[in-house]
């Protein structure tokens, strides 16, 4: 090596390890709280039912519609429903069902929509056209009605609900992914990959997916909310999760009749939905920043400076 090819100076290039993600999370109070909430929800969904036994299904028609109180042990903490079941236990039980509908539905539409979308956007031409028309078709059916029809034809099982909710949301991901891929395919690093002889799917996987992912993830968190609400709307129409399974959406739908007399039945699962989706949204915004090496530094700023308009390239260059 010639003398002119100087190594970057030691001080200038002092290794600057990116901060560990939990440290980053710790710096962002809001995101940390959101992560804790989501963690609790997940934990509840996973181990809650194990601790509860049959508390969520145990009926006592003599204990119907008890308001939240400390008088009836832990199960009575959040009151009882019309059948005298513990609302707390049902909330816990419902967490699992809710997530086992929402997460697979979101994942399924995310994976299917993104894959088709990126494939369509990357290749363009006829493939793109066909994919977009398929999306048009799905979008032209009002999704709730599609769900109603399908769930009447096939019974409203969890798997069918997941399928139909996922199907209805595929176009959203498809379009987003297609737009991103169409934009990214003309980027230089995609060209670079092609010069190595990389074929389409590896290119999509390596270069388009990681960049489109944060956007898709943001859509997915919004959808997470949408799926929970749709499932609730299906319950409102009587074809959602079927008892004795219980989901938050079903609890809200069934509890709506007691809004005046027993608010806790509908309000508490509603709060659970809101808390979960708001946490997911906040955390998704955080993940979006945290997974982007060029944006990650923002998270290390005090929050008051965070969202400030992007800093000139002089800072990072």
């Amino acid at each position, binding site marked *: 090596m*010639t*003398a*002119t090819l*100087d*190594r*970057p*100076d030691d*001080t*200038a290039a*002092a290794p*600057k390890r990116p901060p560990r993600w939990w440290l980053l999370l710790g710096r962002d109070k809001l995101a940390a709280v959101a992560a804790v909430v989501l963690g609790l929800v997940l934990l509840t969904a996973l181990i809650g039912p194990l601790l509860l036994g049959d508390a969520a299904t145990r009926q006592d028609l003599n204990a119907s519609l008890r308001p939240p109180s400390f008088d009836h042990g832990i199960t009575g903490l959040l009151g009882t429903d019309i059948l005298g079941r513990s609302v707390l236990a049902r909330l816990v039980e419902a967490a699992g069902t809710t997530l086992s509908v929402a997460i697979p539905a979101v994942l399924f539409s995310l994976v299917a929509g993104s894959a088709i979308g990126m494939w369509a956007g990357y290749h363009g031409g006829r493939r793109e056209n066909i994919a977009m028309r398929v999306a048009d078709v799905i979008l032209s059916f009002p999704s709730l009605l599609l769900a109603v029809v399908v769930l009447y034809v096939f019974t409203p099982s969890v798997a069918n609900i997941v399928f139909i909710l996922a199907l209805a949301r595929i176009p959203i991901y498809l379009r987003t992914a297609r737009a991103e891929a169409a934009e990214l395919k003309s980027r230089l690093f995609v060209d670079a990959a092609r010069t190595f002889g990389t074929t389409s799917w590896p290119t999509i996987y390596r270069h388009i997916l990681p960049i489109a992912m944060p956007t898709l993830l943001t859509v997915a968190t919004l959808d997470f909310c949408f799926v929970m609400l749709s499932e609730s709307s299906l319950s409102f129409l009587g074809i959602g999760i079927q008892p004795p399974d219980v989901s938050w959406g079903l609890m809200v739908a069934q509890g709506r009749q007691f809004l005046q007399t027993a608010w806790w039945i509908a309000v508490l699962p509603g709060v659970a939905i809101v808390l979960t989706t708001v946490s997911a949204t906040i955390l998704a915004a955080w993940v979006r920043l945290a997974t982007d090496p060029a944006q990650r*530094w*923002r998270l*290390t*700023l*005090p929050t008051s*400076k965070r969202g*400030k*308009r*992007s*800093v*000139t*390239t*002089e*800072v990072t*260059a």
Partner: protein
Amino acid sequence: MNPLPGTATAEPEARTGEPALAVEHLSVDLHTASGTVRAVDDVSFSVHKGRTLALLGESGCGKSMTALSIVGLLEPVAEVVGGSVKAGGTDVLTLGRRARRRLAGPVLSIVFQDALAALNPVQPVGRQLGEPFRIHHGLSRREAKEKAIELMRIVGIPEPRARARSYPHQFSGGMRQRLLIAMAVALAPDVLLADEPTTALDVTVQAQIMQLLRDLRAERDMAVVLITHDLAVVAEHADDVVIMYAGNVVETGPVREVFADPRHPYTRGLLDSVPERAEKGKPLPAVGGSPPELSNVPPGCVFQARCPLARERCADERPRLTATGPARAAACHFSEELASV
């Protein structure tokens, strides 16, 4: 303290009267991941009407941030922490937002680098060009448009009346840069800052644009601050030069003198690495390494890590800007040594 306030003020005959723009001890802090860093450190210079001062430096040296501080467009993460910027006798840094807005256009104006991004993609250019007149002169939309068309004619856009209705993307890069310049000089500002106005352009277009700036400077009697990294452009178009490195001024003076006889090793290194001056087939005499990160600026001389002359003293003591000639200064402990080289 800077021993030579206003050192960059070029030749004696131009030094009469108030400078159009006088920047003194300007310091800008940047709040970044690794804490607060000094992006611009005690920068001073001034420029008179009818003259061009070049702020020369590589990316990240703080030249753009200096310009943005002057026109008050710093990003919120950056903050002016010291010094003054006098335009027309008043220190603009002390003005309120409203008062400062009144100066933006008639007194201080700026041309940005990327003309495509700097023009609003969804507005016809005529409307954008007329905007300064609407803001500052309160003209009607129709009157402003007439003014805009006139401006377009001045900067050499063919068929200005028809093209006023076009959108930025319908113009070529050179034309867009002309539009941007037209917008900046619309109100005949006292000071025009041009931030890398030709970087994105082809050489033939670059020549046209620089000629336009030169003509406008003469015609409107403006002081021009030219921010660039291109030595040749500086040599051709500037009267004075301020060379910046890692947020600091390392050398200032009349372009001709500085380039002919650099007194800072960095200036010398830059001049040497121009391929034109190198012998073909031989390695270019490059300045090794890269500039320090702002978070990691050494306590002593900012250039020490890359400096062929660096010695112990450089590590401990930051050299101050010291006069090296009647209107020149350099921030090097060993500038004398360079002169004799």
